[in-house]
């Protein structure tokens, strides 16, 4: 009864509405500068995704091309497409799989090219992540049914929840829907036990998806928007977080009239919304409130963009994190792959691939 009255009072007086709180970066997520200080391995405008072939070759999607990246960081074109590549995966069974926004194309060795552009009667719309599972299937994350991949900000501000997780079996050629109605799926992964995970960016959580489609949240309340995942050597996985949540964005998400007006009248890059990079333009939101003063970013400035990569254990407990903090350059982390001790991180906001030692990163983050 008391709870009911309390809820009613909260509804009437807006208590809950005024209590905008987000999880903080502490514990295993404690900030450091490991990502910001990481050496730049390769740099190219338009980098979108990374994939590691079973033989250890590193591939990168950039613009309309897919490149093989040498140990020196040199790009060698593998193939080219008529549209921007939005996701990439390489596997023994599937060969090279490429997301092209509203389609997925597979180049499995000598076999003919296969294109997947719909599933269960519904067309693909925003393919943003692919994962070659150990069982030979391909997991496909289709972020939104209403907005194409480049319009992810629109989907957030429209509170989209039309994401899908699909599975394609190259042996049968069937593509099935594993989960739908996702709050922007942006990352799919099958762990060592074959458990399928999906990152729901707008819900700030990771969920496991059963064969029946039953979902269970395994890593809730993330302080940012989770994206692609990749296996980590020694168990567990790497989880990219492409931006951090802020109270300002959460507030704007609760203000419908303001949000609609902003979307109607302001250019998207100046919206109060997360970004993959920031600080280059004085027209960015909050500048009027002096986030920068005399050209210097105030230390408490809310992170419009941020660089964050989490190392998550098999038990879904974050073990440590690599950061590029407010005012840094290596923001908008959307992909990471590990090859032995080498960890390659794609900071899309900076258009850079960073290379770190995973062991040293672990030690550095522990302090």
């Amino acid at each position, binding site marked *: 009864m*008391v709870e009911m009255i*309390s809820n009613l009072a909260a509804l009437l*007086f807006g*208590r809950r509405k*005024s*209590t*905008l*709180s*987000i*999880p*903080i970066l*502490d*514990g*295993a997520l*404690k900030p450091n500068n490991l990502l910001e200080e990481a050496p730049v391995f390769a740099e190219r405008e338009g980098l979108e995704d990374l994939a590691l072939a079973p033989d250890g070759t590193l591939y990168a999607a950039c613009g309309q091309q897919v490149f093989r990246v040498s140990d020196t960081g040199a790009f060698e074109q593998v193939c080219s497409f008529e549209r921007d590549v939005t996701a990439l995966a390489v596997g023994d069974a599937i060969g090279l799989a490429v997301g092209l926004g509203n389609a997925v194309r597979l180049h499995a060795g000598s076999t003919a090219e296969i294109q997947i552009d719909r599933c269960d009667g519904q067309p693909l719309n925003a393919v943003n992540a692919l994962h070659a599972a150990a069982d030979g299937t391909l997991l496909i994350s289709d972020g939104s049914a209403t907005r194409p991949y480049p319009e992810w900000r629109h989907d957030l501000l429209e509170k989209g929840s039309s994401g899908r997780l699909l599975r394609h079996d190259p042996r049968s050629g069937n593509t099935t829907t594993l989960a739908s109605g996702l709050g922007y799926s942006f990352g799919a992964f099958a762990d060592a036990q074959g458990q399928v995970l999906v990152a729901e960016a707008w819900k700030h959580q990771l969920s496991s998806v059963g064969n029946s489609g039953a979902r269970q949240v395994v890593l*809730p*309340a993330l302080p940012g928007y989770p994206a692609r995942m990749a296996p980590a050597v020694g168990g567990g996985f790497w989880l990219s977080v492409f931006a951090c949540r802020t*109270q300002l964005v959460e507030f704007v998400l609760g203000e419908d009239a303001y949000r609609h007006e902003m979307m109607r009248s302001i250019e998207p890059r100046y919206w109060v919304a997360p970004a993959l990079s920031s600080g280059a333009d004085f027209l960015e939101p909050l500048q009027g409130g002096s986030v920068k003063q005399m050209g210097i970013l105030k230390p408490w400035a809310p992170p419009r963009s941020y660089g964050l990569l989490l190392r998550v254990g098999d*038990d879904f*407990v*974050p*073990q440590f994190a690599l950061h590029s903090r407010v005012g840094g350059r290596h923001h908008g982390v959307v992909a990471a792959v590990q090859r032995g001790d080498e960890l390659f991180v794609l900071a899309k906001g900076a258009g850079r691939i960073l290379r770190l030692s995973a062991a040293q990163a672990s030690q550095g983050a*522990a*302090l």
Partner: protein
Amino acid sequence: MSAILELRKVTKVYGRAAAVENIDFALERGEVHALLGENGAGKSTLTKMMAGVVAPTSGTLWLEGREIQLATPSEALKAGIAMVFQETSLVQSMTVAQNLFLGKEKFFNRMRGINIAAQQFMQSLSFQVDPTLLVGALGAAKKQMVEIARAMLLEAKVIVFDEPTASLTPEEKRHFFDLIATLKKRGISVIFISHALEEALAISDRTTVLRDGKHVLTDLTAHLDRAKIVQAMVGRDLSQELYGTRKSAVRPAGKRVLSVQNLRVGNMVKNNSLSVFAGQITGVFGLVGSGRTETFKVVAGVIKRDYSHGGDVILGGKAVRYRVPAQGIRDGVAYITEDRKAEGFFETMSIKSNIFMGLLAKARFGRFWLRGRDVDAVGERWTRSLHVRSVSKSARVIELSGGNQQKVVIAKSLVQEPELIIFDEPTRGVDVGAIAEIHQLINRLADEGKAVVVISSYLPEVMLLSDRLLVARQGKVVEEFSALDATEEKLMYAAVH
């Protein structure tokens, strides 16, 4: 120097047990004399005899060369012996000024006059305490200041301080030590009881150590060091066992058990955010007034956060807002208070009854099925498990030493089988022997996978116990350190600047 106060061959027997036995003690004029010993060593009994609280069973007291008999504390005060107690003896419902002048009232009293006199006196001591505030509204440090001021006001020739610095911040401690120096210059003799041995070593001229009610040593402090004192106190070398080692590894964090987000409580907690993880000890360090205690009291449901803009407390993934502590207890939160006497136990009840109270608080409906004989079984189990030492099984908690009282408070919470255990100043007013046991217990809880929080103002303790350290300042957590990375300097810098 000549002895201002002497105790010759004093013995005090309670029932069949001797609390102090055949002790000779001499306090020189204008000296600071540290009186040290484990809880239960007889320090409090000895000083209570000086302050007229208890009468010796045998032996004599001599003040300025004359034998005296002190039947009541007021007689001791008249004779010039004042005692500042470990657990504050102020009247909570009266103002600071009223407490200062309690017992010295005139027939007609003008509150304004009392307030002004109190204000002037507090200012002369450089104590920043508003004399018009109710003592109950003051923090522990300020209460201690009032307690000290009252002893000063009584113009005592001998002042006995029982654990005076336990609740003071480092700055306040420095100030307190200056005050002791001033007293010394004025020729006032000071007896100083403390469990912080470094303090005793730093400010005392001579040191006396008691063990099990017997005199062990008295010597010039300059001739002693920490190891010698500890050895004399416990009969074995504990200093390495306690604070001698530095952490070489920390426990990895488990699942996030508690997430506090943007918490606000009046002026005490301002937009505070922190997380606590399972299988780890999270140390929370900060000066008095940094909002540490208040934050965790909100978590446990002891106090409430602001109604509007109060932030969120998320326990095990579920947002909670407790109205009463019982709700928190049922959700697996145990808060072990810093003020055990006021909030920790029922002092006139037995150990087993106190422990059983903890179980009653946990059980919502099951309490109707709890039987009387369960009281004995539960009490017995936890008394044995935590090594609570008492004269008899039916001993009241008030009769126990500080360390054993603290163990009862801990047992009262652990019987609830909590998942999140918050220790607020767990070893305050506890002797070194019991400190080691309590530390072992805290470590054991973390090893068992519980989420443990240790709030402490004592840097070596918080550094030794914690796997990760949070530093609070002005109502919020401002820094986080790994125990491998933390140093006293870093922590103090974060707490102050």
